[in-house]
């Protein structure tokens, strides 16, 4: 992982919103690997899998990642109601500025990377919810 992405208009990042991605299996790692193919190396994103973890252990692991976020951050998880989300929600309640976005996909992750140096965590979360939804489109095949 090398230099951070440039901020909008080449300005240095003022307050980068950190992110923790928590998913089943190695989805988080694969998403970041895929994103790196698009934008180059990525910094300041922490990855966690729920693999083999009890509720308490997963919650502790998430809390260990977010406790040092002095000015908030984003918790990105795979789906609503899964252990990554509910344990994240439990861990986040002791850290007020942590905002959770469920249903992470690659366009959402890329949009986070492009905007994390200019928006606050709550602003980013609103934007990513819309971006993730808008990114799902259907194109029907044309019969031959």
């Amino acid at each position, binding site marked *: 992982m090398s230099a951070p992405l440039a901020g909008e208009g080449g300005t240095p990042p003022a307050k980068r919103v950190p992110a923790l991605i928590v998913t*089943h299996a190695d989805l988080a790692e694969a998403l970041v690997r895929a994103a790196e193919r698009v934008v180059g190396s990525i910094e300041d994103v922490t990855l966690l899998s729920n693999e*083999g*973890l*009890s*509720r*308490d*252990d997963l919650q502790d692991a998430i809390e260990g990642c977010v406790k040092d976020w002095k000015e908030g951050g984003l918790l990105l998880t795979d*789906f*609503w*109601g*899964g*252990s990554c*989300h*509910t344990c994240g*929600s*439990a861990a986040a*309640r002791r850290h007020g500025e942590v905002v959770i976005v469920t249903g992470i996909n690659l366009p959402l992750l890329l949009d986070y990377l492009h905007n994390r140096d200019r928006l606050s965590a709550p602003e980013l979360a609103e934007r990513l919810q819309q971006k993730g939804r808008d990114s799902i489109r259907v194109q029907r095949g044309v019969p031959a």
Partner: protein
Amino acid sequence: MSWALHRIDDRLIHGQVLVAWGARLDPARIWVVDDGVAASAWERDLFREAAPGIEVRVASVAEAAAAHAEEASAPRAAFLLVRDLGTARKLADAGAHVEEWNVGGLHYAPGKEKVNDYVYLDDQDREDAKALLSAGARLIVQDVPASRPQPLGALDPALAP
């Protein structure tokens, strides 16, 4: 349909329950039976919001035991989730008649021995399991519908019949 699944899983509501078992059995209601969760306002809210489209009832063991027979005659399917064998045993002791428990996830903690990838037991767990078995309940290890169900006694020599 009524009771469609009684599950022992330390994660309570989570992906396997909602997505895998939920798609198969289509529950209208999920009971989270746990004295600790029932006593905590924020934990109650956490689980109530965890399953969009499904009613989640968070109940103490005593409340769930009292309502158990009535739910058995409800028109649509219901799930009941407890976090450990001890809670399942308490529910049985409180009068809930459960013929079969799905053992779906008892993860590693210090002092627990591996039974398979998602079931780890200590002496207290085994004591609770024996009490449930001797009361006539079946304990079936199966994380998701696609995997093979196996009696806990077939996987753990200490619980072999």
